[in-house]
């Protein structure tokens, strides 16, 4: 018969960890998306002397491994003397990282709208703003959404890295449980299932939106 020393308390502990993972994901994706939209918009219209340095900064954020960014930010905080909690640091670092990717997604979506389509909008007497709001954004959204869903799912899994700056999120909580129960296989399977349950609704939502839009286009 299947036996385990895993108790409800362990499960509850991991659920709390999952809650932390979700909270970090939420704030990182929210902040990253808002900033990414602003920067992506800026990048699609800004002259090269703004675009080049901005692009370089974003390149750094995308190229340096996230783990290093977490650890560096967490150490810098003590040096600079800001008294942010590790949770806040985690959200901020991950938000910037998300923004770096989101910027390119937004910019790509906007640039995917054919010039001739925008020209047609302007030729009807629509202003630059109306062209943006009524034509460019809706079309760009359809291009960008699948990438944005992918980014969000990636960020959710990347939250597991924050255990290195002392946050007990889902993965860290599972390791604590493993230390006690010595049943890594079972616990990791449960954690995997948790991550799946967290990701699945977002993936489904994306698929549904895509399907609805595809029926039209």
């Amino acid at each position, binding site marked *: 018969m299947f036996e385990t020393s895993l108790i409800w308390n362990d499960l509850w502990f991991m659920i709390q960890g999952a809650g932390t993972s979700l909270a970090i994901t939420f704030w990182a994706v929210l902040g990253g998306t808002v900033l990414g939209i602003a920067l992506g918009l800026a990048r699609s219209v800004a002259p090269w002397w703004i675009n080049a340095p901005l692009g370089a900064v974003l390149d750094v954020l995308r190229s340096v491994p996230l783990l290093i960014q977490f650890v560096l930010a967490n150490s810098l905080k003590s040096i600079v003397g800001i008294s942010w909690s590790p949770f806040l640091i985690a959200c901020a670092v991950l938000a910037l990282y998300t923004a770096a990717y989101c910027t390119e997604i937004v910019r790509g979506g906007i640039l995917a709208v*054919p010039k*001739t*389509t925008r*020209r*047609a*909008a*302007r*030729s*009807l*007497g*629509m*202003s630059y703003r*109306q062209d943006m709001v*009524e*034509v460019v954004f*809706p*079309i760009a959204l*359809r291009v960008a959404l699948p990438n944005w869903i992918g980014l969000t799912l990636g960020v959710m899994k990347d939250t597991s890295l924050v255990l290195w700056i002392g946050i007990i999120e889902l993965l860290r909580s599972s390791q604590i449980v493993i230390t006690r129960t010595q049943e890594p296989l079972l616990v990791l399977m449960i954690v995997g299932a948790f991550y799946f349950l967290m990701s699945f609704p977002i993936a489904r939502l994306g698929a549904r939106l895509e399907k609805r*839009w595809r029926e*039209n*286009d």
Partner: protein
Amino acid sequence: MIEIRDVHKSFGQLEVVKGVSMSVAKGEVVSVIGGSGSGKSTLLMCINGLEPIQKGNIHVDGIDVHARGTDLNKLRRRIGIVFQQWNAFPHLSVIENVMLAPRKVLGLKRSEAEAIAEQRLKHVGLGEKLKVYPSQLSGGQQQRMAIARALAMSPDYMLFDEVTSALDPQLVGEVLETMRMLSSEGMTMIVVTHEIAFAREVSNRVAFFHSGRIREIGPPEQVIGSPQQAETITFLQSVL
């Protein structure tokens, strides 16, 4: 009345329109023919201010299109333009495509814009396709939708930029038919086209463009029927 005076237009170093003058009176249909790169499409873009010009001027009903203070968005309400690519707004249904500008630019109520859009779409033979999305239309239907979209602004002038060039041959007829209908209703039109037979049939005048200049302009019987210039003769032989 559209008055074009000594217009020069360059893209960087390349001068594509080299001093064109012509005028189009109310109710007139003027066709512009000529080879690729002769500057005829570019001139069309200059008329509603989509492209700036380097020299000369264009007046539409006395308004200087390229003057500093001209409100181009306001001017463009009166000048409809249809492009070679039909440029449907893919996220909007056919009727929403046509309603968009009347609602946003003219500030009409939804119901008013809907009534106008439905009327224009029926006029171009798309009364059955109101709720359909552009991707489900043929090229010819999309192009007729683009015409209805321009007509929904009740323009005084209509510009057509090689509107049948990107269409399958069997779809050309329906679009030309729609334009024929407009001309018979007295719409003032400038038609850049490669359809010589069509130009001959509907135009009051035909202008032949060659390397950025008007080589010949006059009634179709004259320019197409008995061309005087060597370039015109060569061009017509190559397309007829």
